[in-house]
């Protein structure tokens, strides 16, 4: 089974549709959209509404509906330099 979702780039507002298998993980979504948008190397997370998704979670665990929107957000790690 395939579910189609929309992923939004929080930094630019751009969106891309993505077809996901139930076995796909959140990490694979992050890597897929990061490559598509040629994101700078860095840490990113995915949110679904008010929830942050864990990297190892599979699509089948996420209760994602077709055409639901996820958002890729940078996870800032600076603070000293």
């Amino acid at each position, binding site marked *: 089974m395939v579910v189609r979702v929309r992923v939004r780039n929080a930094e630019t507002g751009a969106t891309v549709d993505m077809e996901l298998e139930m076995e796909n993980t959140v990490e694979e979504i992050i890597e897929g959209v990061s490559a598509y948008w040629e994101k700078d190397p860095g840490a990113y997370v995915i949110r679904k509404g008010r929830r942050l998704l864990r990297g190892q979670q599979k699509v089948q665990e996420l209760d994602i509906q077709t055409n639901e929107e996820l958002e890729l957000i940078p996870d800032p790690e600076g603070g*000293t330099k």
Partner: protein
Amino acid sequence: MAEPIRPGERDDDRHDRTRLLSWVDMGRVQRAQVLVVGAGALGNEAVKDLILFGFRHVDVMDMDTVVRSNLSRCVLFREGDQSSGKGKASLVAERVRELDPTAEVNAFQGRIQSMGSEEMKGYDIMLGCLDNVAARLHLNANSYHAGVPYVDGGTNGFRGRVQAVVPPLTPCLQCGMNRSHFKVMERRFSCTGQDTVFYQPKMAAEITTTSVIAAVQVREAVKILSGRTAMEHVMHYDGLAGTTDILSLDIDPGCPNHSSPKLS
């Protein structure tokens, strides 16, 4: 018979206005032993806020010295510090005592990796004001196993995040990390076969986001120490859009900090 009062005496109390916040446990705040890890941009702001709020026992740890580009967002550093040879932690401790000479602020020059969970048990709360994943993971794991709440802050340009970790109730930092975080860490430590090279990329940073994130870290520390529920669980701040989102996170059943009772 009660002590006599005198006109204007409340204005002589440094923390009178803070005491008007009924939920704040000022006694607990003033007794708390706090460790601030990182004395750069976030660390400067956090220590300043802690002392102004009324914290009296603060240890500051940092391995670094000042460079001139720090001066744009470090309220406690001064022109000339970059050539003083003094560590960031000792400068922060020295300068913040000007704000409250009765506060006990100690500086430790070194890496957080030199401190284990046993030593962390002496603290009531820790603030992470760091700039790399490896140090965060160490502080996260050891504070969790020490049972000490940990409030982490991070910035990049106009974006920032804060996570409050209260063991054993909440998810920890590692629960929210994924391969992209570990790739960042791998890029920073490259092994040449003879030595480990530490690569520290320059990240965009400015004072307004730094101030917001450090302030939220200190406020979460006050909430936790005062017995209030900390934010659940991660705050993401976008300064350009002017938005703040509190996002929930689940404990990762595969996270080593939750699945093992002790650090090996």
